[in-house]
Structure formats: structure tokens, C-alpha cells
């Protein structure tokens, strides 16, 4: 295999991985855009999404042979998992963050870390700590294009991610509620005076972010398996992706995720980083971004007034 096709292969793998980061990064960035706070429990919502998806899928598909039926089951499981996580996200916001909205900025952050522990330990208590495999709903025979192989799983990841992002862009830019969301992210008290129900906008933001995390969790589960602490590293990397793109910026999260995925997939072999150290790439990128352009690629260079 020539070096060129080898790197093409890395890029394809990177884009798939990055698409998952993007989906998860959107949740961080949307919440930050509106509340100016990092929801550190977001990674664990992704884990819950993967578990719910897996349970529903296993209940529906059972031991059925991969085929149209199992693919159908997979999408039903995805919808169920999205709905569950949306409700979970709204519930977390209502219970753990809303009472702290006027508190010191550190308070909701600590509350988020607490929620994160409750979710991951709760899952360990209920499901045990052994990791489970998420079965492919289809035959995962790779397709060869030139020297590059693409698996149906990768195609699924890309199609689902793109569809989700298009839907989200449509919602935010074209609907009334999306407009309310954008207004709220610009200025909360003023938006309230414009007749916007800010509480509902915030609730909805958590619902959408968590539903996207559920999708991300299920897509990630094929590669990473399902276990109670799976959200920690994936969530952190998605957070890095959000910062790279410019936290608070929706397009930024999409771009940042894919970019991070590619950097990770290409950077590790390029710099001869051993497999166990691959995660360092993402965090090295985070440090560089914070040093060079702390507002991220699409972030506005806006100094906060004191």
C-alpha cells in the first residue's frame, strides 16, 4: 500500500471518528452558548444513550440475523435512546443546574461533575463494569475504493451524523424556536423582555444536546464497546473539539469535531505515537489552540468586560 493511500485511509477513519466527536461537541457548545457553562455531565449522557440504545436494540432484534429488520431495529433503538436522553438532559438541567442559575459560576460546574459521577457510578451499579459489545445491525464487510477501505459502519456514522447536523442547522436557523435560541444566547434578560420563554429555551437546548449525545454514544459504541466510563474520554475529546471550533459556535463544533478526528487519526502514525498514547494528540491540540487562538477557529475574539 502506498503512503498516499495509507494516509487517505487514515483521513477516512478520522472523518468517521470526527463525525462522532462533532455530534457530542454540539451539546457542549450549545449549552455553553446559552448558559456560559461547561456541562461536564454531557459525556455521561452519551454513555446512558449507548446503554439505552443497546438494551432497546437487543430487546427488539434479539438474535436475529443481520438484515433489513435489524437495521430497522437499530433506528428504532436510536430514536428511543434520543428520546430517553432528551428527557434525562432536561431533568438534569431542572434538578442540578436551574437552582444554581444565579449562583457563582463555579457552582453549576461542580454540580455537573457531581451529576457525571452519579450517572457513571449509577450505570456501573445497574449494569456492572464489564464492557459489552454493540452488535452490528448489518454485515460489516468492508468496501474497497481504490486502496481505501470503508466499512458499512463508517458509512452509517457519516450518513447519520450529516443528517443530524443538517436537521440541527435547519432548526436553529429557520424555526421560531431556533431564533429564540439564538436570541437567548446573545442576551438572556433582554430576550425575556422580548417575550421569549428563556426557561423553555434552556430546557430545549439540553434536550437537543442530549439527544445528539445519545446518537453519538450509539455510533461510538460499535468501536469502543459499551461500559459505564465510556463517556469520560469521548466526552473530554468532544469538549476539546468544541474548543477547537470556538466554544458556543455551532458550525465551529461541527468543524472542530471532524478536524480533531482527522488530526488524531493522521497525527498518531505520522508522529509515531504508540497506540496507547493516541489520546495525547487531542490534548496536545487543545493546549496549542489555547495558546495560539483561545477563541477557537470560528470563535469571536471578544474580551469579556469586567
Amino acid at each position, binding site marked *: 500500500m502506498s503512503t498516499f493511500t495509507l494516509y487517505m485511509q487514515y483521513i477516512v477513519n478520522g472523518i468517521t471518528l470526527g463525525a462522532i466527536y462533532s455530534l457530542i461537541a454540539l451539546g457542549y457548545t450549545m449549552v455553553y452558548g446559552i448558559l456560559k457553562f461547561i456541562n461536564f455531565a454531557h459525556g455521561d449522557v452519551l454513555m446512558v444513550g449507548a446503554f439505552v440504545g443497546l438494551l432497546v436494540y437487543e430487546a427488539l432484534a434479539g438474535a436475529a440475523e443481520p438484515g433489513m429488520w435489524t437495521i430497522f431495529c437499530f433506528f428504532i433503538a436510536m430514536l428511543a435512546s434520543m428520546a430517553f436522553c432528551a428527557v434525562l438532559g432536561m431533568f438534569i438541567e431542572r434538578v442540578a443546574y436551574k437552582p444554581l442559575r444565579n449562583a457563582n459560576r463555579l457552582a453549576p460546574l461542580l454540580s455537573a461533575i457531581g451529576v457525571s459521577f452519579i450517572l457513571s457510578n449509577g450505570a456501573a451499579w445497574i449494569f456492572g463494569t464489564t464492557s459489552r459489545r454493540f452488535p452490528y445491525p448489518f454485515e460489516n464487510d468492508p468496501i474497497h475504493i481504490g486502496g481505501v477501505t470503508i466499512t458499512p459502519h463508517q458509512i452509517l456514522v457519516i450518513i447519520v451524523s450529516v443528517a443530524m447536523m443538517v436537521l440541527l442547522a435547519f432548526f436553529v436557523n429557520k424555526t421560531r424556536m431556533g431564533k429564540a435560541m439564538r436570541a437567548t444566547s446573545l442576551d438572556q434578560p433582554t430576550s425575556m*423582555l422580548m417575550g421569549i420563554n428563556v426557561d423553555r429555551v434552556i430546557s430545549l437546548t439540553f434536550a437537543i444536546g442530549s439527544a445528539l449525545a445519545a446518537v453519538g454514544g450509539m455510533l461510538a459504541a460499535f468501536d469502543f464497546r459499551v461500559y459505564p466510563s465510556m463517556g469520560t474520554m469521548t466526552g473530554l475529546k468532544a469538549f476539546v473539539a468544541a474548543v477547537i471550533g470556538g466554544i458556543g459556535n455551532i458550525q465551529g463544533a461541527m468543524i472542530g469535531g471532524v478536524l480533531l478526528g482527522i488530526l488524531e487519526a493522521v497525527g498518531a502514525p505520522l508522529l509515531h505515537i504508540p497506540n496507547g498514547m493516541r489520546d495525547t494528540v487531542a490534548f496536545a491540540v487543545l493546549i496549542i489552540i489555547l495558546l495560539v487562538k483561545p477563541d477557537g477557529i470560528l470563535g469571536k475574539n471578544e474580551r469579556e468586560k469586567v
Partner: protein
Amino acid sequence: MRILETQNLTREFGGVIAVNDVSFKVEEGLVTGLIGPNGAGKTTLFNQITGMDKPTSGKVIFDGKDITGLPAWKISRLGIARTFQNIRLYRELTAVENVMLGLHFKVGSDPFRHRFLQSLRSYVFASGENKELYGKAMEWLGFFDIADSAQELARNLPYGTQRELEIARALSAEPKLLFLDEPAAGMNPAETAHLMSVIDKIRSLGVTVVLIEHDMKLVMNICDQITVLNFGMKIAEGTPNAIKTNRDVIEAYLGREEDF
């Protein structure tokens, strides 16, 4: 007709009583002034009425309905708009976009009011009505003679224009009642004169106006009714002429004669 009334409204912050048992009345169609020395509780009273804060006790009655403690967005949809002492615009949006946002949640916000399907569509999708909103927003800017600045970012506008833009945005939602918190603060005499003509125009639209103001010339010229607060309590109310000669008011502003 009485459009707004507070009944024994009280707001305590810890041990400080910022608004103390105030019964404040606003008659429909008039311009009512709310004056008093600094720290008298004027803005706090505004905040209680517009839902920015909840009163400790007492009631707010608007248009015959008890609106005490409702969230700000509900009160704004009921038809009370306000501006702030420190200007609150969407700084990163243009002037016309600011007014469009003010209009947005008024137009088509009730899917059952007009032709159902069309309204439902506008309830969900924002894009279809943007043109209509833009036209209306431009009309409002024209009403304040600031249509030239429509495409400027709000934060780049001169101070006086920012204040008028904030009023334009508040008014664009077609409120029944408009609260202005120190609209002339920081304005030069020419801008103040323009503001006075604008308030006159607002009155002629049939909108009831309540304003907090320190510029006595403006208050005495434009208000039909004046209420005076001092240390959180109402000390006088009446026509400008009655207020000018009221002993309590003069004392509150200048101190007792014996003190000199």
C-alpha cells in the same frame, strides 16, 4: 380608566426595604412620571411590575388581571414593554435586527388567532415572515427618525440613538403600557428635545407611558401625572403643578429649611 395599579407593594432585600407599601396608579392614555431622589426605589418598583424581580408582598394589577410574580416573558406578552437605565440592546446585531426581534414574538405568536394553517406555519418557521418583519421594523425606525442607522451594529450607534432604538424595539411589540427607565440620562439637550417630541408621538399612538426621569424640565413638561417616591415610600402624587409646590417633595429633594 386605570390600566395598572400596585397594591401595597413591598420589596425587601435582606434588611433593606427598597419599596415600602407603595400603591402606585397609572391611568390609561396618560404619561405618568415616577420621580424621587437616588435610591428611592423607582427602578426596583419597575422591576417588580415588569417581572424582573418578585415582590415580597403586595399585588400588581394590570388591565384587571393580577400579574404579581409572573415571569418577565409572560408579562411582556401581556403588553408591558420596558427600557433600561443601562441600555440593553443586542449589541452585536444591527439596529433593524434589534427591532425585528422585538416584533418577532408578537407577530404570529398565537397560532389560533388568524387563518389556522398559515399561522401554524409562521408559528414554526421564522423565515417566511422575515420580509414583513423587516418592513415593519423599518417603519418603527422611521417613526424615531433613525432609519438611516438601520444597518449599523447597535453597539456602534451614538448614545442617544441607542436609547431611541431601545424605545423603538420596546414599542414595536405594540405594548399597552411602556416603561421608560431614565430615557434622557446622558443625553445632550438636542437629544433630550428630540426625545420629548418622540414621547409625545408615543402618547398620540394611544400607548400609556410611565417614565422614571431626573430631568425635571422634561418631567414637568411632558407628564400628566407624577408620583414621587422617597426611601421606598410614596410621598406624593398629582399633576406637575401640584407636585412643584408640594412641601414634602421639596423637602425630599432639598432638605428641611431648619437644616440650613
